[in-house]
């Protein structure tokens, strides 16, 4: 019984991993790729690790999987945030179909504040 549930969870995880990578290939610019890839691949790997926990129970095996889930949930959004901010600050534009960019409008204001921080 637990084996069946675990295998189902693992299959779902692999499917979402594949969708995330498909998004990484198909979507038009860095930010959209980051969205699809981060969400789907994080969820997929979480599904696989959850399947491992269900199949193995709370042994040292399952505990390592729990640590893996916690690590992924904390690390993936942080990396996505860092990359997107760096990409925008280094001047990579949004795709042509984008309709609004509030961050670009506030940019002059922001660079001033950054310089102020460095001086202090």
């Amino acid at each position, binding site marked *: 019984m637990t084996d069946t549930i675990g295998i189902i969870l693992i299959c779902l995880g692999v499917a*979402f991993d594949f969708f995330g990578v498909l998004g990484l290939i198909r979507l038009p610019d860095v930010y*959209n790729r*980051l969205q699809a890839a981060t969400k789907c691949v994080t969820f997929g790997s979480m599904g696989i690790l959850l399947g491992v926990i269900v199949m193995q129970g709370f042994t*040292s095996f399952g505990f390592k999987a729990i640590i893996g889930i916690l690590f992924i949930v904390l690390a993936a959004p942080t990396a996505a945030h860092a990359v997107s901010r760096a990409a925008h600050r280094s001047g990579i534009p949004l795709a042509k179909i984008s309709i609004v960019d509030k961050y670009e409008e506030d940019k002059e204001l922001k660079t001033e504040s950054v310089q102020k921080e460095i001086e202090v």
Partner: protein
Amino acid sequence: METKTKSRIIVFVFALVVWFALTDIKDYQEALIGIAISMLISFLTGHFLIANVASQHLIKRTFHFLLYIIRFIWEMIIANLEVAYLVIHPMLPIKPGIVKIKTKLTKDSAITVLANSITLTPGTLTVDINRNKGELYIHWINVKSKDIDQATKEIGERFEKTLTEVYE
């Protein structure tokens, strides 16, 4: 008791539990090594964990945190189904853009949790935070409104209510 000492004790217990769970303990030497390493870790890095121990309403806050986790998992499932639909769709029906939302949270940890959960939920990705004004810049894959108040209502308020209960 001082806050730093309290924080170190919490880290010590936590590290010891992790050690005992990760190793199948067979004799007393492994347990001794675990205790020694946990003491080293708590001595070196223990005072970073908790800046101020607030002991009021602990049960209520834990309850709201559990509520928040359930909400978060639900939103995450919805997010992934949406992104899977977008990716399979042959025409790629997206309308991306960066919008600005407001937040009332002030503590560092609360804003971090809010930003991370915005990143993992439907169609949104936190790009930058302006902490002085309490504003977040969000990349939205399917922009529904450019207005700041409307966007705040659409994105931020799902989590903000529960997080206010947890942290403040």
